């Protein structure tokens, strides 16, 4: 063991821990990320250059060209990606890490046949890494719209569980019988298939939770590499991400009032059928509003609260909504944004999107902060949000989303809802808010509808 390399690893471990800590605070987050990146860079160069091995120039050429190509590709794709596509990008990079871990195991297995502890970490890394890779790729294709349907096999939970048990038994069988390496390739393939089966039935709106879970899987896969090589930095990084990622997964579930098992094993999130509201009461009539009427209503208000949701992210309406906000402010209207913790495509995603279009950070209000304010609000403009404003979560115990914290927009004087169509939200439940006498519906694509509102307001 080289002392200098170990000191580098020690330093890098500190950058990971401190970096994560700084990442969880808004003021220090950016520095934290860069600090961890610094530690990682030094650790990578240290590993390549500091050792006592005789390395042929061929291998140096291979290693450095892989590093250079990977850096160029990673850098360019990360710089080019649109802010709205962030979630699938994270998923893609996560998959790469998983594949990396799986490949390491494939290569190393035959060096360690018969060495029990090493084989256990190799096989564990292989299984976890492969699942993380194929699962992340499916999540990637689902989020970017390549895979639109939620394929659901009959008895999928039973099939999946049996599949997983089969994988584990097969791995133990390989380990006990010291089977040749070809068997690890079979294990690799069936683990890949399991990753696909695992993610395929899960609905698009639950993808953030799945990505976060797969993120912690990849962390574990990295940690198994740490066991294998007795590399403390891989262990620290892997386990930190494994545990922090698991916690983050639970926090995200909580914000959506979903349990992890309902995300994975599916209840309403994965089914395409409409769950009835439960109460069975008559919902009444819904009224539509034109863009010009909506513009008039907002023009003569004192206070407008905008509730942006998934629909806004999909339609990329974040810039035009900022224009609407500025226009209203210039007319003396007070404008605020109410951000539900899970608005957008990932928790916190809406804040990133609005920040991108230069919305003042101070105008974004979190749920707890804005809820008491709705009573004094003249107009609430809901753009592409549905379940997060469904009053059934507060007052209908039979509703599947009962208990989920929501934005209590129904307390405002007027509510304007922009939606593409009357389809139910991702939970597939009716929203009685739309039938409230105070509510008017402004149908159309979020970007188009808000653009019309801006045009109308400009004429006033």
């Amino acid at each position, binding site marked *: 063991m080289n002392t200098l390399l170990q000191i580098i690893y020690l330093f890098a471990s500190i950058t990971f821990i401190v970096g994560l800590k700084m990442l969880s605070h808004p003021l220090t987050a950016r520095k934290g990320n860069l600090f961890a990146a610094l530690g990682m860079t030094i650790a990578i160069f240290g590993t390549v250059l500091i050792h006592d091995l005789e390395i042929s120039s061929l291998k140096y050429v291979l290693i450095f060209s892989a590093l250079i190509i990977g850096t160029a590709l990673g850098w360019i794709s990360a710089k080019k990606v649109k802010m709205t596509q962030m979630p699938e990008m994270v998923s893609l990079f996560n998959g790469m890490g998983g594949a990396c871990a799986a490949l390491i195991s494939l290569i190393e297995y035959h060096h360690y046949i018969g060495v029990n502890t090493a084989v256990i970490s190799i096989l564990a890394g292989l299984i976890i890494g492969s699942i993380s890779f194929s699962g992340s790729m499916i999540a990637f294709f689902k989020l970017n719209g390549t895979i639109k349907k939620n394929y659901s096999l009959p008895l999928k939970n039973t099939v999946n569980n049996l599949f997983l048990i089969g994988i584990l038994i097969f791995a133990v069988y390989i380990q006990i019988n010291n089977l040749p390496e070809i068997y690890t390739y079979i294990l690799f393939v069936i683990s890949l298939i399991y990753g696909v089966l695992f993610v395929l039935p899960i609905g698009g709106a639950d993808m953030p939770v799945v990505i976060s879970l797969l993120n912690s899987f990849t962390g574990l896969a990295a940690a198994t*590499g740490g066991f294998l090589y007795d590399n403390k930095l891989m262990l620290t990084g*892997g386990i930190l991400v494994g545990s*922090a990622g698991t916690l983050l997964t639970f926090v995200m579930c909580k914000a959506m009032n979903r349990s992890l098992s309902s995300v994975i094993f599916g209840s309403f999130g994965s089914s395409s059928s409409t769950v009835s509201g439960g109460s069975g009461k008559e919902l009444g009539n819904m009224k539509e509003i034109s863009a010009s009427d909506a513009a008039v209503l907002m023009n003569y208000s004192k206070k407008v609260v905008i509730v942006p949701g998934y629909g806004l992210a999909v339609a990329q309406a974040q810039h035009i909504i900022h224009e609407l906000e500025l226009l209203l402010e210039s007319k003396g209207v007070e404008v605020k944004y109410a951000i539900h913790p899970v608005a957008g495509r*990932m928790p916190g995603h809406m804040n990133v999107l609005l920040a991108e279009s230069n919305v003042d950070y101070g105008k974004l209000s979190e749920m707890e902060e804005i809820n008491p304010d709705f009573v004094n609000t003249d107009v609430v403009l809901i753009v592409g949000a549905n379940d997060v404003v469904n009053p059934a979560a507060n007052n209908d115990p039979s509703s599947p989303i009962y208990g989920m914290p929501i934005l209590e927009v129904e307390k405002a004087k007027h509510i304007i809802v922009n939606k593409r169509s009357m389809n139910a939200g991702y939970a597939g439940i009716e929203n009685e808010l739309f039938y409230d006498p105070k509510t008017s519906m402004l149908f159309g694509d979020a970007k188009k509808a808000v653009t019309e509102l801006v045009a109308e307001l400009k004429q006033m």
Partner: protein
Amino acid sequence: MENFILDNLELFYFVILAIFVGIEVIGKVPSVLHTPLMSGANAIHGVVILGAIIVMLNCNDNDYLNLSLGFIAVLLGTLNVVGGFVVTDRMLEMFKKK
């Protein structure tokens, strides 16, 4: 089994402490930062690339199959690390300009 535990005792302590550190450091994260934090953590598990480099260093020069697999592993690991940190930085850049 007993040997396995005794031989790796330090490692077990290490793992358990690291788990708690992981939970503690992100314990009070506001929901605004969930996405960047997930992305930052994603970059950090790219540390798996060290394993890929070690594999390459120890690989035989004429073992072309494993050299190519190792090459791909280093490439993918680099994508994870670089892409992860750059994407996170881009997200956090948005928060800075107030």
